[in-house]
C-alpha cells in the first residue's frame, strides 16, 4: 500500500487579484523523489512557500503525516521535519559552512539558557556532538574541506551544497529543493543529483524537487507533478508526463519555433 507523507489538498493562494494557485492537489509518497515542474511563473515556488508556511493559503489543506500544516508558522513546520533550500541562496553569510549546518540542528540541542551563560559541561558536550554531526553531513555532501570557511567566500556550487546540508541539519523527513542545479554545469549537476539520490536511498528522506532541467527531472524523479498558471495539469511517472500532450503544450505553447526541443531533449535523456 502506498504511503503518503504529504498531501496537498485543493490549495488556493491569491496575491491581490492574481491567482497564483487555484485548487492545486497532489500527493507525495514516502521515500521518493517527487518533482514539481511547470513553466516560469506557474506557481511552483508559491506552492513550496505554502507548504513551508511562508504563505498562508486562502483555502485548502496541507497534510504532513496526516497532520494539518496550513496556517502554522514556518519555524514550527520546519521543526516538524520539512527542510528546504531556496531558489536564490539564503545562507547565513557571517558563519562558516559548519555553523550554517549547526544552526539548523538547534531543535535537537537541549542547551539551557543558564547553561549557555556559564558554559556548562553539558553545553560543551552538546556543541561537540553537533560539530561531529555537521561533519558527517558535510562529508556526505563531499564538502568537508570547507567546514571552517566563511560561506560568503565560497564558490556558488559549494554554497548550494551547504544550503542542502543546512536543510539536512534539521534532520527532515521531507527535503524540498528549489532549483538545486540552477547555474551548475552538467558535470556539477550530475554530481549533485547523484548525492541526493544516495540520500534518498540510504536515509529514506522524501525529496521534493523543483527543477527546470528536464534531463535531471526525467532521470531522477519517481513521480512528477506539473502545474501551469497555478493549476494542476498532470501528475504521473516521468514516462507518462513527457508524452502528455497537455504538458508539452503548456511548456512550449503552440506553433513556436523549435517546439520539439524539450521533447527531444527529454527523450534523449531517458534513452541515456
Amino acid at each position, binding site marked *: 500500500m502506498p504511503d503518503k507523507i504529504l498531501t496537498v489538498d485543493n490549495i488556493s493562494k491569491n496575491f491581490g487579484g492574481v491567482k497564483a494557485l487555484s485548487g492545486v492537489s497532489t500527493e507525495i509518497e514516502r521515500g521518493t523523489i517527487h518533482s514539481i515542474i511547470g513553466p516560469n511563473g506557474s506557481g511552483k515556488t508559491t506552492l513550496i512557500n505554502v507548504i513551508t508556511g511562508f504563505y498562508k493559503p486562502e483555502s485548502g489543506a496541507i497534510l504532513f503525516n496526516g497532520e494539518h500544516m496550513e496556517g502554522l508558522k514556518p*519555524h514550527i513546520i520546519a521543526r516538524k521535519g520539512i527542510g528546504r533550500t531556496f531558489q536564490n541562496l539564503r*545562507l*547565513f553569510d557571517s*558563519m562558516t559552512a559548519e555553523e550554517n549546518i549547526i544552526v539548523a540542528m*538547534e531543535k535537537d540541542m537541549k*542547551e539551557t539558557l543558564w*547553561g*549557555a551563560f556559564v558554559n556548562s559541561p553539558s553545553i560543551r558536550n552538546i556543541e561537540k556532538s553537533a560539530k561531529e554531526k555537521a561533519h558527517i553531513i558535510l562529508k556526505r555532501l563531499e564538502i568537508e574541506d570547507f567546514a571552517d570557511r566563511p560561506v560568503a567566500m565560497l564558490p556558488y556550487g559549494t554554497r548550494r551544497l551547504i544550503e542542502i546540508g*543546512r*536543510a539536512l541539519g534539521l534532520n527532515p523527513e521531507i527535503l524540498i529543493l528549489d532549483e538545486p542545479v540552477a547555474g551548475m554545469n552538467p558535470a556539477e549537476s550530475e554530481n549533485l543529483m547523484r548525492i541526493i539520490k544516495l540520500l534518498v536511498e540510504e536515509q529514506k528522506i522524501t525529496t521534493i524537487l523543483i527543477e527546470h532541467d528536464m534531463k535531471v527531472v526525467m532521470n531522477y524523479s519517481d513521480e512528477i507533478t506539473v502545474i501551469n498558471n497555478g493549476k494542476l495539469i498532470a501528475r504521473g511517472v516521468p514516462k507518462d508526463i513527457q508524452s502528455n500532450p497537455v504538458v508539452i503544450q503548456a511548456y512550449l505553447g503552440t506553433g513556436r519555433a523549435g517546439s520539439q526541443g524539450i521533447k527531444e531533449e527529454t527523450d534523449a535523456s531517458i534513452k541515456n
Partner: protein
Amino acid sequence: MNRKINNLSLPVVSLLVILFPLLLNSYYTMRILSTLGIYLIIAMGLNVLLGFTGLVSIGQAGIFGISAYVCGILMERAGVNFWFAFFFAMAVGLLVGLGLGAITLKLESGYLAITTLGLCLMVKNILQNWDSMTNGFEGVIGIPKPSIFGYVIKSQKAVLVTITIFVVIIFWMLRFFLKSKYGRKLRASRDNEIAASMMGINVVSTRLLAFTIASVTAAIAGWLYAGLYGALFPDFFSMDLSVLFMCIVIVGGQGTIWGPIIGSFVVVYGKELLGSLGEGQMLVYGIILVLLCVVQPSGLAGLFEKGFARLREITLKKGEENAR
C-alpha cells in the same frame, strides 16, 4: 597543551584585569575608568542586540535610568540593602525587555528603534518632573554606600574594582552565550530572517531574548551606578547617553566580542580629549561615526583583525622563506 593554556587563561586573565586597578593611584584615572566600566557593561549588552541581532535600540540610557532610580530610591528611602536591590534591577530589566519587546518586536524590526527612542525621552521627562518620587532636578542624593563582609565600598579604588569584577563576569557570560546555540540563533536571524525561520528558528522570540539581555545588562549597570556613585541626576540619563552607547559599539566593532571594550576606551577617552569643544564634540562624533560606517563597518575590532591576519600572513611567508 594548547587546551590547558586555554582553560587556565580565563581565570588568570580575569584576575589580572580585576587586580589591575590596585596599581593605579590617580583619582582622575580611576574615576574615568569606573564610568568607562559602567558604559562598557551597557555597551556589551547593546552589542548583543545591535551587533549580533542587527536591531537598533536608542533606549539603553532610559533603561539604565529607570533601574538606577528604582534601586537608588529603594536604597535611599526604603533602606533596601545594595545587594538585595540587585533583584529589583533584574526585575526592571526583565520587565522592560520582555514588556516593550513583546509589543514591538512582532512589528518590523525598525520599530524597535522608534519605541526605544520614545522610552528614552519619556524616562528623562519623568525623572525630571515627578518631584515627589525622583526629587526632580535636585536628584536622588545620599544613597548609602554598599558594604561587603563589613567592608564599605567607598574609595574610588574599591568602586573601580567592584565595577571591574562585574565587567569581567558579564563579559564572560555574554561571550559563552554568544558561542552557544543561542548566539547562532541571533546571528542567523540577523543574516537572513527568512532562512532562519525556515530552519526552525522562532525569529520573534530570538529577538526578544536579545533585547531582554540588552535591557538586563543596562539595568545591572543602573544598579551598580546608583549604589557606587551614590547620587542620581535626571539630566545624565539623556538621549545623548544612548547615542554614546551606540557609538561605543559601532566604533569598537559591532558583532565582535572585543568591539565594546575597544570602543569604550576610544570613545570615553576621546570624549575627555574633545571635552574642551563643548557642544562641538557631538559634531566631531557624528563625522567619525559616519566615516566609520562607510569605510570600516566592522569597527576598530575589525580593523585589528585584518591587521593581525595580515601580520600572520607576513610572518608565515617569512617563515617559508627562511625554511628555503
